[in-house]
C-alpha cells in the first residue's frame, strides 16, 4: 500500500454536486501510509458544503473496501480553506476555468 495507490483509489470518490473526483479537485490534503495504516486528510470546497459528511463517509468506505486489512485514520478539515488553485487542470477544465 503506497500513497500513489491510495490516491488512485481516492480518484474513485466524487463530489456529488460537481461530479469531479476529490483528488482532481484538490480536496485531498494529505495521504500517509505506514505499517498497515493509512492516514488521509480531506476537505470540502466550502465550510458550508452540504456534502461534508457524505464525502467523509464515501472516502472512509472506499478506503475500507480497497484496503480491508488497513487501519484507516480519516480527518475532515477546513484549515487551510480550499481554493480553486488547489485543483488539477482536469478539474479546472471541468469547472470551465481553463479551456480544454
Amino acid at each position, binding site marked *: 500500500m503506497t500513497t500513489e495507490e491510495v490516491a*488512485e*483509489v481516492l*480518484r*474513485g*470518490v*466524487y463530489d*456529488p*454536486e*460537481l*461530479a469531479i*473526483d476529490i483528488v482532481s479537485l484538490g480536496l485531498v490534503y494529505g495521504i500517509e501510509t505506514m505499517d498497515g495504516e493509512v492516514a488521509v486528510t480531506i476537505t470540502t*470546497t*466550502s*465550510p*458550508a*458544503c*452540504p456534502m*461534508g*459528511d*457524505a464525502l467523509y*463517509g*464515501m*472516502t*472512509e*468506505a*472506499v478506503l475500507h*473496501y*480497497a484496503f480491508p486489512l488497513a487501519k484507516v485514520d480519516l480527518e475532515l478539515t477546513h484549515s487551510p*480553506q*480550499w*481554493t*480553486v488553485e488547489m485543483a488539477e487542470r482536469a478539474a479546472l477544465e471541468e*469547472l*470551465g*476555468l481553463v479551456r480544454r
Partner: protein
Amino acid sequence: MMRMNPSNSAPLGLVAPFLLMAPLGLLAAGLLLATSDASSLAGINAPRNVAAAHAAIIGGLTTAIMGAIYQLGPAVLGGRLVSQRLARIQFGFHAVSVPAFVWALLEWNVMWMSVAALGVVTSLVLFLINAVAAVGMRRPNSVTRAYLSAALVMLVITASLGVTWVSTLEHLWFPVTLGRLSGHAHMGLLGWLGLTMMGVSYQLVPMFNVVQKREPRLAWAALASTCGSALVGGLVLMSDPGREVRLSVAAAMAVGPALWSIDMLRLLLARSRRTLDVQGKATFLSLGFLAATIVLGLVVAVGEPLQDGDHSARWQLAYGICGIGGWAGIMWVGNSYKILPFLVWYHRYRFLAGRGRVPMINDIYDDRLATAVLWCYAGGVALLAAGAGLADLTVLRVGAGLLAGAVAAHLGTLGHILFAPHAAAAVAQPLGRGALR
C-alpha cells in the same frame, strides 16, 4: 460562514410534499390569469387578480419556502424542528385551506373566505412554531438567519393585516382601500418573499457556484433597508398617500433589493464554476425581472397620468407579475432543481456512495430539460407582464397559458426527480478501483 449538517435535516417524506404542492399554486395562478377578462385590467382588486396573487404567493411560493425552511433550518442554520408530526399536520391544513381560500376569493364569497382563512392562519401558526425553532432565531446571528428571522416577523404582520379584513372586508372600522391592499401586498412581497429569497440566496449562490474570493459586502445594509422600507413603506401606503410620497416609498423599497442585486452580481461574476447550470441562469434571469419590477414600481407610484380609465390596473398588474412571478418565481424554479435533487441524493444515495455505483446529483435531473422549463416559464412571465402593461388580453392570456404549461412541466420534472429510479441498476454493482461513479 455557516457549516452545514444535513444529517439534522427533516426527512424527505416531510419536505417533498411541500415542494410538490408549490407548483400547483403557481399553476392555479397561471390558469386563473389565462382565463382573465377585462375586469382584470380594470382593477387590481378584481377577484380574479386577488385569487391569482394568493394562489401564487400562499399556494406556490410560501409552500415552497415552508418546505425549504423545514429542510434548510436544521441543516444549515443549526436549528431544529419542534415536531415533525406538527409539520405534517400543518401540511394537511395548508393543502386543504389554501385552495379553498383561493376559490373563495375568486367567487368573492365572504363567508367561505373567513372559513378558509381560519385554516390558512392555523397553517401559518403551526408553521411558525416549527419555523422559529428551525431557523434558530435566538442563536448568534448569521446573514441567512437574520434575513429569515425578519421574514418570519413580516409574515406574521402581513397575515395579521389580511386576516383582519376577510371576515368583514373592513380594516377594523376603516374600509379596505387600494392603499391598504397595497400596504398588505408590499409587506408580503418585499417583507416575506423578498427577505426570504435574499437571505437564502446569500447561502446558496456562493455554495452552488463555488464562490471563494469574494464576500458579500452589502448584506446587512440590504437587510436593514428592506426591513425598514417594507414595514414603514407598507404602513405609509396603507394611508393612501399622494404621488410624491408614493414615489418616495417606491424608491426606498427599491434600495434593499438593489443592494442585494449588486452583491449577487459580484458573487456570480467571481464564481469558480464558470459553466452556469439552471440555478445560475435562474439567478441572472431573476435579477433581470427584479430590475423590471423596480422600474414598474416607480411607474405605478406615478399613478394617474400613466393610467387610462378602462385599464387603470394594467401597470399594477404588470408590476405584480414581474415581482411575484418573475423575481420570486424564477428564483424558486431555479433553486428547486438544486434543493430537491440534493435532498433525493442525500436521503437515497448517501449511504450507498462508496459502497457501490451511485448517480451524481447532476444525474438525478436533466439540466437541459430544467433549463427549457426555466426559459418557458420566464417567457410566460414576460408575455404575461407585457400583455398586462399593453392592456392586451390576448397576449396576457397566451403568456399565462405558457406560464401554466411551464409550471406543469416543472411539476413533472420534480416528480421525476423524486420518484424515478435513477441509475437503480448501477447502485448494487460491486465497487472497482477508480470506478465508484
